């Protein structure tokens, strides 16, 4: 007998455009088993205490030195770290794989917060290209603007920019949510595969170009649609989710989500059969 609870959850997720296909082929999914918890070890992670707080001035440090220092502080149990004077340095805060409250008092350069899994980050400035690339989980909030390739290839978590972002936001993203308070540049959602992007302002040309799946919500004007990006109906559950998400993100709480446009993949561009390329070869 089918599990009704699971079916409801699945159809709800599908109606919101989270995914519309069942993974098949050679894709392997392994789920965490609580019974095996004692055998589970996530290399490079620490148990930290959020009430244990410290400041770190990185003004005279290189990025590797600053990142090593953050790692050292986490190993000592510090759960809240305030970074002073980041001054646009590249690759700060990368590879953090545990829960952590991280606050940057200033701006970051390229690749800030890349490949992270779990931290809650607030950046009281601006970020350069490829912020939070490959984010797996956690929350990253940017108070000002962001450069191009914002949230490239993220798998999960919430990535929020209160200002405007450059081109190719959410390129190749495979999950998670990106929320933009201002405008977004060209090729937003380029080749996205899953996840959701919310833009409260305007967006540039070629929106959602060559997207496989996932959903983009736009509050302002759209420069142009990319190949295979099409409009979809904004449902009541979409609106509920948008309201909740914007509230949690502390951004556009009073925004009229009912007027937002919903863009999804038309699925005419790619071959959506169930065969992997090697299997297809065999079938021919």
């Amino acid at each position, binding site marked *: 007998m089918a599990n009704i609870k699971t079916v409801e959850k699945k159809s709800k997720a599908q109606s919101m455009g989270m995914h519309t296909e069942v993974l098949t082929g050679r894709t392997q999914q392994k789920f965490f088993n609580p019974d095996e918890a004692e055998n589970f070890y996530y290399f490079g992670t620490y148990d930290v205490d959020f009430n244990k707080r410290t400041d770190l001035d990185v003004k005279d440090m290189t990025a590797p030195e600053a990142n090593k220092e953050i790692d050292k502080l986490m190993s000592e149990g510090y759960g809240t770290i305030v970074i002073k004077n980041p001054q646009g340095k590249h690759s700060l805060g990368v590879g953090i794989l545990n829960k952590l409250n991280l606050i940057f008092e200033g701006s970051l350069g390229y690749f800030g917060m890349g490949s992270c899994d779990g931290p809650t980050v607030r950046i009281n400035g601006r970020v350069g290209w490829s912020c939070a690339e490959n984010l797996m989980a956690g929350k990253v909030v940017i108070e*000002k603007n962001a*450069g191009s390739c914002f949230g490239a290839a993220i798998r999960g978590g919430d990535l929020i920019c209160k200002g405007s972002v450059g081109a190719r936001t959410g390129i190749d993203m495979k999950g998670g949510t990106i929320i933009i308070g201002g405008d977004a540049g060209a*090729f937003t959602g380029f080749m996205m595969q899953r996840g959701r992007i919310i833009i409260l302002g305007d967006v540039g*040309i070629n929106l959602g170009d060559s997207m496989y799946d996932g959903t983009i919500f736009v509050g302002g004007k759209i420069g142009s649609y990319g190949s295979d990006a099409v409009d979809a109906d904004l449902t009541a559950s979409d609106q509920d989710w948008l309201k909740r998400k914007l509230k949690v993100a502390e951004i556009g709480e009073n925004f009229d989500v009912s007027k937002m446009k919903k863009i999804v993949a038309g699925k005419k561009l790619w071959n959506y059969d169930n065969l992997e390329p090697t299997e297809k070869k065999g079938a021919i």
Partner: protein
Amino acid sequence: MCGIAGLIHRGKSSNVGSELQGMLQALKHRGEDSTGYALYGDTDGKNFIMRFKVGENVGEGSSSIMEDVSVYDERKKIVDETIKELGAKIVKEERTLPYSLRYEISYDKKDLLDFSQRIESIPGVEILSMGKSLEVIKDLGNAKAVCDRYSLDKLVGTHAIGHARMATESGVDIKSAHPFWGYPFSDVSVVHNGQLTNYWNNRRALENKGMRFMSECDSELIAVYIAQKMREGASLEEGMKDSLTGLDGVFTYFVATKDSLGMAKDTMAAKPLVLYESDELVAMGSEEIAIRSVLPQEIDTYDPFDGEVKVWRI
């Protein structure tokens, strides 16, 4: 990869030589093959300043052929004679390096086409810049090395653009280094980060219209393209907007004139640019760290969008 930087002070002068050196040095990881400065200094505006070279830097990493210094002397002598024949007068001359010279020239004609064609018809001689305020200084090495070699850190002016180059498709030499002079326009210079894919088509068309190319660096096309548009009567901004469709490829570039500084970004927005803008100062660069070298305090910066053109005046 290459890095570009530029700044313009509005309503005042500053030590732009030192400021640009700091910005370009912060971008040195984007390329150290050569570094170039286009500095707009405070002058009385009476004489033309001509920066030119009579040979190449043949130091380590250079792709140029070594020549005897006596050849440089010979070329200089011909340049001096040609200037005299053109009815111009050398008011002041400096020979910073055996191959690099700076002349202040009294010349009462406005059109520099004939003048520059005659000078550059001398084999081995290239005018790096000509103008009443502009001085283009470019050489092999990183920003600090070039700044020290030419003592640029004391130069006071209103605006400047510069380039840190990683040579990809043309040689490691001064002729392929940026900035490029907007030949034959007085005080026009260009720096570029990116790659132009319709270089040869445009080059052939422009050469047919009488424009000259000194290198095979695709970035030179932008300087010549804008110069040709201005020659046809377009304003700087109009010429730059036209380039968004006329030039194919990925690019972010800056153009500077005697009293203005502009930026343009291609419609794919594939090349980076971070911009800070206030009533007193506009500073921009390929990375935020370039701007931080002149403004270490917390500031608001942003990335211009695809297809954006902006021009600021002093």
